[in-house]
């Protein structure tokens, strides 16, 4: 095995037969329906291990996930994706890949542009984006909601925030696919996506230095680091990389899973059409039940988690989605209860790495569901079509064929 990025190291992923001792979050069975697998793992132990991915643990309970998320001494964020390879760390994306003490200043620079108030100013544009998209397909009486709707909302919203053309969204989607999905098993795809993205943003950075605006890129260039000095270009590029990688297919997935649920649950759909004020509460439940994002940590020092020994040299698949299905934390954890009152879900993480874009994601989800239900109150899965799900780190529907109107 080589650490060289050019090595065509492609370990095989034989189908899993023993989930408890040989789990694989890229197995097609997991991709299609991970929930029963998590139940099996949770029943076996609060922490399970696989030899795949060069050695990886997975906490299976809310408690174990929380212990790891809060423990920055034994667990590093320097690698946040569980992959087949562990090459030298090159492309950082602060603050998601930062540990204390570097983490806090890197995060504080990014927080002000993503407060709920800042999101309120962006909301009208997102509402318009949703309606522009619906205009394109509503007359057809059907659509692939993943390809025609959910995919485009986050990418256009972020492009708008960054002050770059919304039409460049297709490029972003390609890079994200290379980095988050193909990159798990193919280093060349990962590096090619990172390289193209870096070149693209470098050009925008140079342009903003000449003509500053009030977009997010200009704000980052104006921002001061902990010592009062401006951020380096490398830091700004890293944070832009993060916003793109973390802000797009995640929310695309979250909106998609919400629509998937509503397409197959007429009672919930009818209730939200009749009581739109309940939509924010329902969104929290969709976030809990269909959390899209699984993070990772690297074990730096030996420790125990929920009584289980954990050794350095291994990665950790930090499954917030599995934590959110833990019946010890959530009554009726496997039921989607759209008016759930107590919901301390961890869809956006726990501890210092709380998703910096959580307010953006919530706003996009709420607006996307509100506008869809206003214009398409009745819809259902197309029995002639097939729903497919993304593989790996972020889970959501990638094909979501739906028919509009009441059931015939």
């Amino acid at each position: 095995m080589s650490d060289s990025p050019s090595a065509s190291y492609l370990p095989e992923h034989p189908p899993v037969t023993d989930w408890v001792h040989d789990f694989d979050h890229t197995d097609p069975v997991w991709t299609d329906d991970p929930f029963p697998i998590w139940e099996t793992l949770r029943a076996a132990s609060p922490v399970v291990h696989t030899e795949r991915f060069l050695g990886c643990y997975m906490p299976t309970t809310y408690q174990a996930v929380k212990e790891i998320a809060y423990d920055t001494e034994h667990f590093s964020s320097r690698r946040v994706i569980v992959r087949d390879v562990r090459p030298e760390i090159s492309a950082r994306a602060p603050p998601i890949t930062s540990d204390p003490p570097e983490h806090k200043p890197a995060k504080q620079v990014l927080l002000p542009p993503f407060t709920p108030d800042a999101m309120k100013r962006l909301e009208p544009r997102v509402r318009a984006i949703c309606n522009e998209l619906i205009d394109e397909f509503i007359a057809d009486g059907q659509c692939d909601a993943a390809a025609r709707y959910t995919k485009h909302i986050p990418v256009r919203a972020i492009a708008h925030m960054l002050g770059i053309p919304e039409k460049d969204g297709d490029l972003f989607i390609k890079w994200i696919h290379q980095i988050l999905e193909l990159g798990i098993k193919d280093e060349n795809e990962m590096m090619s996506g990172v390289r193209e993205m870096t070149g693209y943003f470098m050009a925008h950075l140079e342009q903003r230095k000449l003509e500053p605006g009030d977009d997010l890129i200009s704000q980052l260039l104006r921002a001061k680091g902990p010592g009062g000095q401006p951020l380096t270009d490398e830091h700004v590029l890293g944070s832009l990389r993060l916003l793109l990688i973390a802000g797009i297919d995640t929310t695309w997935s979250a909106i998609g899973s919400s629509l998937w649920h509503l397409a197959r649950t007429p009672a919930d759909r009818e209730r939200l059409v009749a009581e739109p004020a309940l939509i924010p509460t329902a969104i929290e439940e969709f976030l809990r039940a269909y959390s899209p994002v699984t993070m990772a940590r690297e074990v730096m020092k030996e420790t125990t988690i929920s009584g289980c020994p954990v050794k350095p040299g291994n990665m950790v698949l930090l499954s917030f989605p599995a934590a959110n299905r833990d019946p010890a934390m959530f009554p009726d954890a496997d039921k989607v209860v759209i008016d759930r009152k107590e919901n301390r879900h961890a869809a956006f993480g726990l501890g210092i790495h709380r998703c910096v874009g959580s307010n953006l994601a919530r706003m996009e989800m709420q607006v996307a569901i509100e506008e869809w239900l206003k214009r398409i109150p009745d819809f259902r899965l197309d029995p002639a079509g097939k729903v497919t799900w993304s593989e790996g780190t972020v889970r959501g529907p990638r094909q979501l064929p739906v028919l509009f109107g009441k059931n015939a």
Partner: protein
Amino acid sequence: MSKLRIRVDQDKCQGHARCKSLAPELFELDEYGNAHEVGDGTVPAGLEDKAWLAQTNCPEIAIEVTEE
């Protein structure tokens, strides 16, 4: 009915902003989006349910509600 008082533990709050969304009268956010109780944290009569709602939805368990 007893009086409620709320307090956000600044060491625990990570800015999820669930409290601000559920009980906007009782919490305010700073420029980083972290939450603080409004005033001295005294919950005005009629807003007790919202105080508990915020408390039970905070993922970091950063909100203390005390009965006085």
